[in-house]
C-alpha cells in the first residue's frame, strides 16, 4: 500500500492523544523512517514534559522501541501516515 519512494525515506507521523493527555500543538511530524520508534517516544516525553508516556499503535499495542519507523509505517500505517496514540496513564492494557 504505502510505497515509499526510495528517494524519500521520511515518514509522516500523526500523534493522537487519548485519556487526559494534552493535545499537542504540533501533532504531525515527519521523521526519517530509518529511525527507531524510541525516538518518537523520546519526542513525546519531551513535548509533554513527562518521564512516563504510554505509546500505542492502532489504539491497541505498543511496538518494540527499537523497531524502525519505516517498518511500522509499512505495517500499520493508514493513508500514508502512521497514527501514534499517546497517553499519560496506561490505556488499552
Amino acid at each position, binding site marked *: *500500500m504505502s510505497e515509499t519512494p526510495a528517494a524519500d*525515506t521520511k515518514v509522516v507521523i500523526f500523534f493522537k492523544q487519548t485519556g487526559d493527555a494534552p493535545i499537542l500543538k504540533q501533532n504531525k511530524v*515527519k*521523521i526519517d523512517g530509518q*529511525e527507531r520508534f524510541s525516538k518518537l517516544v523520546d519526542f513525546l516525553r519531551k513535548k509533554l514534559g513527562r518521564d512516563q508516556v504510554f505509546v*500505542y499503535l492502532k489504539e491497541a*499495542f505498543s511496538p518494540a522501541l527499537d523497531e524502525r519507523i519505516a*517498518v511500522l509505517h509499512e505495517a500499520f500505517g493508514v493513508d500514508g501516515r502512521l497514527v501514534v496514540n499517546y497517553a499519560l496513564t496506561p490505556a488499552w492494557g
Partner: protein
Amino acid sequence: MTDIAEQCWRAAIPVQLRLAENEVSSLEHPPVLYFLVPRQSYLHSLVPRALQMLEHLLPPGDHVPWFEHAHLPLKWGVPAGVLYDLVAAPSAELPWRLTIHFRSYPDRLLAAYGGEAALRASFFTSLKEAACICRGSAQRVMEMAAGAQEDLWRQVVSSSLQPYSQVMASLQLAPVAQRGGRPPAIPIRLYVRQGVGGYLSSYEDISVTSRPVEALAADGSAVTLRQALLPLLAECVTGSRGADSTAASLTVPATLLAASSGSTTLVGNDRGSLEAATASSDAKPAAEPEVGAALVEAGSGAAESGDASSPARDSTSNAAGHDETGVGGATESTCLLEASVAQRRLLVAGTTPPLDAPLAWLHAQLHAPDFFLYIVLHAGR
C-alpha cells in the same frame, strides 16, 4: 490443533539453576535447582518455585528476579524456547545452565521488570500486535473479559495447549485477506545473530524485527520461508554491516520501557535527540500538505555515517514480502540462508524447517502463544 503443535507445546528445556553467589547471605550452600521450562512459556514462570527454595538464603529486601546465561542477562519478555535458540542452541547446551538473581537488576540492559503483571502485559501487547497484523484490528483481544484474559495467561504460563487453543479459536485470529485486496499477512519476529560460537556477551550482535509478511505471492502461490527471509536478511545484514550499530536490539514494549525512568539508556545511546527543526529543504509543499507540521530532522548525532549502505537497505525494506531483494545483498543472503539451514543454525521452535515450507503453514503449527512466528537465525560463519 495438530500433532506438531502438540509436540511444540510439550517441548521443554531442562534448566540448571544456581543462585548468584554474591546474593547468598547465609552460611548454607545454596542448592543447585533443576527445572523443566516449557519452550512456549517464560523463564520467569520458574521464579515462584525457585524463590520457595532459595528465599531463606537471600538478604532481606525486595526480590527482583532476573536470569543470566554466561554473563548475559536474559530478556524476560521473550519465550523461553526462543531465548534458548538464541543463546544456547548452537552449543547444544543441556541442561541450560542459568544463574538466577534477585538483586542488582541490570536496568541498563533489560527493561524494568514489574513482576508477573509486566510479563503478562508484554504478552498481551504482543498478542494484540499479532492480531492487528492478522486481522487488521486487536478488537477481539481487547474485548476479552478480564477473567478470560487471566485464564489465557495461566494457560500460557503452564503451557497447556488444549485450553489455550480453545480460547484462541474463539478469538479468530487466523490470518485473512486484508482490506484493499491485500493477501493475508503472517506476524513474524526474526532474530538474527551475527557471529556463531562462543557466548553472547551483549545484545549488540543481535538484530530483531517484528513485522507482517504476506503469505501469498502476487501469482497466488504460498510464500515460502525462503521467500520471506531473503529480503529481511538482506536488510539485517546490510543494516548491521553499515554504520548502524544500534542493531543492538531490545524488544521492549514501549509502555514498559516508558514506565521505567532512566529509560533512554536502554535504547542505544548513540542517537541524537529529536530536534524539531524548521528546515524546509525537504519540504515538498505540493506533495504534502504540511499544515502546522514540523519537519523532524535527525539530530546531527543520528546522521547516518554509512550512507553507502542505505540505498541497499532502502530497496529491500520496501520489498516487504518477496521479489525485490537488494542487488548486492541477494546472493550473500541466499548463501547465508542455505548454509544456516545445512548447519541447523536457522531455528523455528527449536527445529530447522525446510526453506520451502510455506510460511503460513509454519505459523499455524509453530507460532508462539503470542501468535508470532519466532525465527532465530545464527548468521555468522
